């Protein structure tokens, strides 16, 4: 654990904001920072150069990456504490597959989905419903790992339901469905990232208000209870808050894996298990990390052309082997 928490946060803030500010200017078409920024700030779209138009396209995408990366890392750290398992991810309780199922329903059968209108609302609804279902099953189970087993089962269940939707869907829609599965930050305009903000704010505030309780719970739930923490309540509320963060991100981007595992794992050695430090540090590192991952994904050249690869593929390719490495060396 670092003896200099302020310095650590300072470095991470510089990293996170640095990534956020620089990434829009980098990529397949590098942009002249000064001119494009001044033109963009002037707001007069008719006089924009090509550089500025590209910048305008990239900015919402980078903002979405910044918000999603931070939220997934915080959700992962909280999930690991509350499930007392350093290999838990924001999606362990089935949030991701349930959310994807909701989105698939809307995309494949717009008439059936009816009132849900937007895939992202359906995704959010199903992801949160899955969390409630897991929590209520776990409450009735006498096993300590009941909650993880319920989450794994729900993942299988919604996975099968996903396949069912794909099987029944119009073959012409399969490309759209598959694109959702890959997890992408491809957005147009600031509406999407900005409408994600309230969900993330609720989840973050709920978690940051209980950092003391999370610290005690992480050490030992029974000792925490004796120390005046209502262990069952903090677990339920914390899991709901972490799931809300993950569900909101899934609803807006599709599943982007492994950030929630990778970032907290890399930081815990420096922050210790003090959540008032760990959670902000995770936000800062996670946001910067996903911005860089997305920059790499959209800049990668495959077969001599720019791939514009969905970032979910890249994070899974990097994160999967990392997960296995952690699994092998964990004590």
């Amino acid at each position, binding site marked *: *654990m670092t003896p200099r928490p302020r310095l650590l946060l300072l470095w991470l803030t510089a990293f996170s904001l640095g990534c956020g500010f620089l990434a829009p200017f980098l990529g397949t078409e590098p942009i002249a920072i000064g001119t494009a920024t001044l033109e963009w700030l002037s707001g007069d779209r008719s006089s924009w150069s090509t550089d500025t138009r590209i910048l305008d396209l990239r900015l919402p995408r980078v903002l979405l990456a910044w918000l999603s990366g931070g939220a997934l890392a915080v959700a992962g750290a909280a999930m690991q504490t509350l499930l007392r398992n350093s290999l838990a991810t924001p999606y362990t309780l089935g949030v991701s597959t349930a959310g994807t199922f909701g989105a698939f329903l809307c995309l494949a059968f717009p008439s059936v989905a009816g009132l849900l209108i937007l895939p992202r609302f359906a995704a959010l609804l199903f992801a949160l419903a899955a969390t409630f279902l897991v929590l209520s099953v776990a409450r009735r189970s006498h096993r300590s790992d009941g909650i993880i087993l319920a989450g794994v089962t729900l993942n299988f269940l919604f996975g099968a339901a996903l396949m069912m939707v794909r099987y029944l869907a119009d073959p012409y829609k399969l490309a759209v469905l598959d694109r959702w599965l890959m997890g992408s930050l491809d957005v147009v305009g600031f509406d999407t990232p900005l409408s994600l903000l309230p969900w993330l704010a609720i989840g973050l505030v709920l978690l940051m208000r209980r950092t003391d309780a999370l*610290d005690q719970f*992480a050490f030992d739930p*029974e000792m925490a209870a*004796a*120390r005046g923490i209502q262990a069952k309540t903090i677990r339920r509320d914390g899991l709901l808050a972490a799931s809300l963060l993950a569900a909101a991100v899934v609803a807006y981007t599709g599943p982007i894996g492994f950030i929630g595992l990778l970032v907290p794992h890399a930081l815990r050695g420096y922050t210790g*298990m003090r959540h008032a430090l760990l959670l902000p540090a995770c936000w800062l590192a996670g946001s910067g990390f996903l911005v860089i991952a997305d920059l790499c994904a959209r800049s990668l050249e495959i077969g001599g052309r720019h791939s514009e690869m969905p970032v979910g593929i890249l994070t899974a390719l990097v994160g999967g082997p990392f997960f296995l490495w952690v699994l092998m060396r964990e004590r």
Partner: protein
Amino acid sequence: MSLSTHSLSVTFGTASDPPVLDGVDFELEAGRFDMIVGANGAGKSTLLRSMAGLLIPQRGKVSLDGRDLRQLPLAERARHIGFLPQEVSPAFTYSVAEAVALGARVAGLGHWFDHGLAGAAARAVDQALDQVDALALRDRRLDELSGGERRRVLIASVLAQQPRYLLLDEPAAMLDLQHQSELFGLLHHLAGEGLGVCCVTHDWNLAVGFADRLTVLHQSNILASGPPAELLTAEILNAVFGDHFALLQHPDGRPVVVPK
């Protein structure tokens, strides 16, 4: 000044299940070292957990200096009563200082930013570690310690709460004889400093050697309670374990339990 149970009854499962504790009256006074013994399933841990406020009794109540424990705010309860469960298994890596600092935070020590490792909190951590003779372990990792060292650090973490009553569930389990003896010596010393210490143990001989008062739980209630040397008789042993053990006399006059 005491932590007491009054006609305490606890049942797990449905109301028709047999009670684990059935009308238990027990009093832990400040400055006294109490040990609770009994066969497996006698209700020892349940009594201790009830006294820590972790279980809601079906009947009766637990009171702290005359006040009903359930009426006490949780944070205030934690400042008076320190509880160490039989097994503590952190799922993450902690340094010794971090583990003890978690206790100091209950006492209101530890700043948002300093991990409880600076200023008054750091002093409280050092003092608690010093009390259990583990100051040299301060910067070690908790998962690298031996069983005995780990137990001492966990007790320091509870001591850092600065409680007036210390409840420990089988603190000597899995410790070798020397570490058991050192641990009970330490608890006896802490009681001498004014703490009310109560621990559950399976080692009757060490209990007789160190406790100020021994309480025998049997079939959901207290079979006997009093000064160990007077309390431990062949009849008591017979009632708890049947005719499998005998009592011998230690050279210093204490009774010693041995298998027949």
